[in-house]
């Protein structure tokens, strides 16, 4: 088939075509490199997020004794997750810096600025209930996500993130010590 075109148009079209083609190839290459970089980053960055080592912050030993955490063992994945939950609740800006804009200088920079651990335990056993304000059933995890976004002026972790999960586990451990049943109501203080 004769693909020739009138002279004068041919060089312009070819140039345009080659620019578009180059742009297309470059974007494909960039996408592939970006995807690869994301995979590598996710792999190495997740090591620090899902680590099992936990720093002992001040007050942990008192909390541990007060709420009988040793019932679940002196150590182990569950106990370490509770300890991480403790760190998150009392030192949020230090342990969840990705999800809050609050810093050490802010007056309220942690969950403990608004909630006690017992508040969290009662919230846990009363979660997954219909909230008329948002017209849907709200889980404990969604409530924590909203705190990160609103009260802590930050961003929502995923439901799987230890920044959410470990707060739930802390609430569960405290609920155990308080002998709470599902739907337990707090007596007026």
């Amino acid at each position, binding site marked *: 088939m004769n693909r020739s075109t009138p002279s004068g148009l041919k060089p312009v079209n070819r140039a345009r075509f080659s620019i578009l083609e180059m742009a297309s190839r470059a974007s494909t290459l960039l996408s592939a490199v970006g995807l690869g970089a994301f995979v590598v980053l996710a792999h190495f960055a997740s090591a620090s997020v899902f680590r099992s080592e936990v720093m002992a912050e001040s007050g942990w030993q008192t909390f541990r004794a007060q709420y009988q955490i040793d019932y679940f063992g002196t150590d182990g994945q*569950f106990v370490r997750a509770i300890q991480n939950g403790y760190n998150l609740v009392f030192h949020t800006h230090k342990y969840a810096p990705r999800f809050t804009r609050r810093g050490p200088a802010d007056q309220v920079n942690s969950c403990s600025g608004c909630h006690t651990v017992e508040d969290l335990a009662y919230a846990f056993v009363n979660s*997954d*209930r219909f909230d008329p304000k948002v017209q849907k*059933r709200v*889980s404990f995890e969604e409530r924590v996500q909203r705190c990160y976004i609103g009260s802590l002026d930050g961003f929502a972790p995923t439901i*799987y993130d230890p920044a959410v999960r470990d707060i739930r586990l802390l609430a569960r451990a405290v609920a155990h010590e308080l002998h*709470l*049943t599902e*739907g*337990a109501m707090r007596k007026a203080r």
Partner: protein
Amino acid sequence: MTPRIRLFTKVFVVVLVAGVFYGLAAHKHTQREQIRQTRVALTPACAEKLSRYALAAGEQYRSPYVLKQTGGTVTLRGYSEEDVRAIQRGCNIISDTQGRLAKDVSRERWNTTRFIRGTHLECDHCHQSIGDKQDANGNRLKGSLNLGTSWVMADMYDRFTGLLLPFELRQMQCYINSSNGYKPNISDDLIRDVTAYSRFLSAALDLKIGNHYEEQGIDEIAASATEKQGDDYVRGEALFKGKCMHCHGRQAFGREVNGQLIAPAIAGPNAWNMQSRNYFHYVSTILPGFICRNMPLGQENTLTNQECRDIAFYLSNLPRPAGDRQGPLIALKQQVLMTAIPPLMRLTESARDTGITVQAAQQHNQ
């Protein structure tokens, strides 16, 4: 077609596809919201169970079970209309996972059959009495896989996965392995409604968060709990034929009569897969525990520990679907076995039966 027109066409197609996808997602979202607002038609078992536990919308909840068992009352936070419907739907899903009693499975059971490959298995087969098995006096039974107790002990370290396993992820595993299917999303109503029902059970039974109760999970039977005669395929086969075959069928592929499921498959394409904890070669303590505590129906706790292990060992040597960790070659092998073995077994058994009949006739003539 000039390159510019081609580019515009591509962009148009992408925008069109995205628009259609968005429209479809918005439609499904609205449809789900309508389903959440719709009155729930309970299965007979759920109607009985939930009325016995006095589930109703109100400011406070007091469990009749607690009153009956302890003589005292515990006042808990009540449920809204939306919460009640979620609990009812969750109960229906456990009681009738395959939607045999539903007019429309996609609307009444959140499309459960999409997440299960076989046509037999239902949550209630393992979590009997809708996840809350009791004796005539209302005592909860040891190792009965009670869902309320599972909820209060959720999030603990799981030795099989090496995870702190939330209740939702555990349900996903049930869909993938025990139902040989696919996992729903963690936020899917299918998962959330079952969680709502399980949480309600824990309230109705007054279970304390983090406490261990003996009706939680399975009363596992290790080899050390037997006389250590060794798990025996031959003994297992004989026991299966005597105790189980009548309901589960000659080859354990389940039994259906006129579309009614008499007993589910415990081998073959409709059964749990090789990655399920019920698979003896993967976890050797769970299936024997289930058999001893729950089978045969009406004669529970009559088999010895060794007999339960023998039956479990025999069953796990029958063909069943491969799990997600076995890979395509094993999956293919299992498919071939599931197709080829049943006719071969029928042939062998009919030949054996014929031989026995001829032998008996000869003896009779002599």
